[in-house]
């Protein structure tokens, strides 16, 4: 049935009933009362049918519209409102499609947002994990981000005042708001003012944090997009205190090496000049040639020991560990040092264990380490005192002790005694050195032989270095039986 058909059908029905009534009354087949009653009943029945149809249509429309799940019942075109309803349904169906695509976009955006949030969290975690301070300023020069390493360079809000602004800076007002320490505020201002050339500037400054003063380097870089529009400025602040200490130590080491090399060179030059000038008689000349020879030997030893250290530490030297008896190595080392001790009138005592101490070592390297320890003991022990070399067995280890009654090492120097280039300031003047000897000993004992080394010392009483090496030969068959009754 087409649209409005029900309505026209009803009008037609009423017209037909009305005409039938008129015919019945005119032909006197029925009284006017009966005709009126028939007409009334027909009208009422027609109206009831129409109202019910409209109600049914309304329910259908309601069901169609008020359904959040978008589950639309089949559209029945036999509807009182016909085309209007059809049009409305079409619109609703179109909006349904749009809604579905909107929902998909929403889900997609949510996923994208989550990914971006995760990435941002990752970036923040990376920045937080850095030891150097990171400060990011936006294009308006306001602090936008700072990691925890940079918190010391921020001025707490309670302390922010105009004192920190530099009146000479055009950006002073902004800088107060940024609330960073004056050194960084100045750097920021200078970097922002830099329009071209390199986009970064750097500064170095001393800064005290938690009572400790250190040296810092700050590098500020302007950030720009592809259109060269300034996005902001990033500042990286690094603590270069350690780096500077290392540089100073290295410079001191080079200076120390130069001094050590120049001393024999001075002797050689002086002697050679005198020989060239013919100031010496034959006997004196012969003596000077001998001295020159000695000084060249000294230079050679010095250069060799430096190269040796560099080669051992860098792993260039091949480690040749073999089965040895420890006391044999100690005796050889003692023989090398003995003349030095005698020259300095130092009593040199060797108390080696009666036991056979089997070790699996690089003979030359361990020997060098013991010579270094003994040489130090002799160098830092005054004339007339004593140096003692001992060996013993302790559990599964061979223990070597180098003890002296010399100057001793102050307590604050003990933790640094094996550091490269470190020399005890108090004893620096007592003997020349490069600060490499003990560093090499430590490397040989711990890295090459899996042993350990410790030091005990008291100023003006003496020092004792204790070296522990794992006991035993690699080739077990060759390991000799140890006499239990033997004493150290």
């Amino acid at each position, binding site marked *: 049935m087409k649209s409005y058909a029900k309505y026209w059908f009803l009008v037609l029905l009423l017209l037909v009933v009305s005409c039938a009534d008129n015919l019945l009354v005119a032909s006197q087949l029925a009284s006017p009362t009966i005709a009126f009653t028939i007409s009334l009943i027909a009208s009422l029945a027609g109206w009831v049918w129409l109202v019910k149809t409209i109600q049914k249509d309304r329910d259908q429309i309601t069901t169609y519209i008020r359904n959040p799940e978008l589950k639309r019942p089949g559209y029945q075109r036999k509807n009182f409102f016909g085309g209007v309803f059809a049009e409305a349904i079409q619109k609703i169906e179109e909006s349904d499609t749009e809604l579905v695509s909107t929902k998909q976009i929403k889900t997609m955006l949510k996923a994208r947002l989550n990914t971006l949030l995760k990435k941002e969290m990752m970036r923040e975690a990376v920045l937080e994990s850095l030891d150097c301070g990171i400060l990011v300023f936006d294009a308006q020069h306001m602090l936008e981000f700072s990691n925890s390493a940079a918190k010391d360079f921020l001025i707490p809000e309670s302390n922010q005042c105009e004192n920190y602004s530099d009146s000479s800076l055009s950006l002073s007002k902004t800088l107060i708001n940024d609330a960073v320490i004056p050194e960084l505020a100045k750097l920021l201002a200078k970097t922002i003012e830099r329009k071209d050339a390199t986009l970064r500037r750097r500064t170095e400054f001393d800064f005290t944090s938690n009572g400790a003063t250190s040296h810092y380097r700050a590098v500020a870089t302007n950030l720009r997009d592809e259109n060269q529009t300034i996005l902001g400025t990033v500042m990286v602040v690094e603590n270069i205190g350690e780096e500077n200490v290392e540089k100073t130590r290295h410079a001191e080491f080079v*200076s120390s090496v*130069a001094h050590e090399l120049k*001393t024999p060179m001075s002797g050689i*030059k*002086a002697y050679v000049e005198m020989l060239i000038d013919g*100031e010496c008689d034959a006997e004196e000349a012969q003596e000077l040639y001998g001295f020159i020879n000695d*000084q060249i030997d000294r230079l050679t030893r010095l250069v060799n020991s430096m190269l040796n250290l560099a080669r051992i530490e860098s792993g260039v030297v091949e480690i040749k560990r073999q089965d040895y008896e420890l006391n044999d190595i100690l005796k050889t080392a003692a023989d090398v040092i003995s003349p030095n001790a005698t020259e300095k009138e130092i009593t040199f005592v060797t108390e080696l264990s009666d036991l056979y101490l089997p070790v699996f070592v690089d003979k030359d390297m361990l020997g060098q380490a013991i010579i270094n320890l003994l040489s130090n003991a002799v160098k830092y022990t005054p004339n007339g005192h004593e140096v003692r070399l001992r060996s013993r067995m302790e559990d599964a280890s061979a223990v070597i002790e180098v003890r002296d009654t010399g100057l001793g090492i102050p307590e604050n120097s003990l933790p640094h005694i094996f550091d490269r280039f470190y020399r005890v300031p108090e004893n620096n*003047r007592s003997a020349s050195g490069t600060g490499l000897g003990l560093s090499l000993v430590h490397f040989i004992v711990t890295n090459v032989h899996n042993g350990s080394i410790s030091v005990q010392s008291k100023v003006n009483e003496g020092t004792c270095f204790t070296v522990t090496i794992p006991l035993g030969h690699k080739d077990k068959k060759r390991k000799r039986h140890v006499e239990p009754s033997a004493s150290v």
Partner: protein
Amino acid sequence: MAPLIYVCDDDSHIVRAISMKLRKAGFEVECFPDGFACWEKMQQRAPHMIITDLQMPRMNGLELCGKIRTFPETQTIPVTLLTGKGYEFDHDEYIETLKITNVMVKPFSPKKLLTQVQESLNLTNDVTG
């Protein structure tokens, strides 16, 4: 009487070379292994000039100069400082504050050292005794 010169250096070869050169030029030379030994001797007998190394045990060259300049009896004695240090040592500062007459950087020429000694003592020719 030949001028007396004290030579301080912990390196025996440098001391030997300098003293040989100066003695041959007619000076009286006394040698010390460190600044402290030199300072002790100076209190008994003041020299005409001192040649000292910078880095020495017990008392270094600068400390020795400081002592010398503190006491009226020794404060006018010319001092030549020998040093193995190069650029890292601020010669001018010490020349100014400790009134060091000359600084000679190792390795040095004994001939030049002798000339400087003679100039410091206002001697134009070799001292013959």
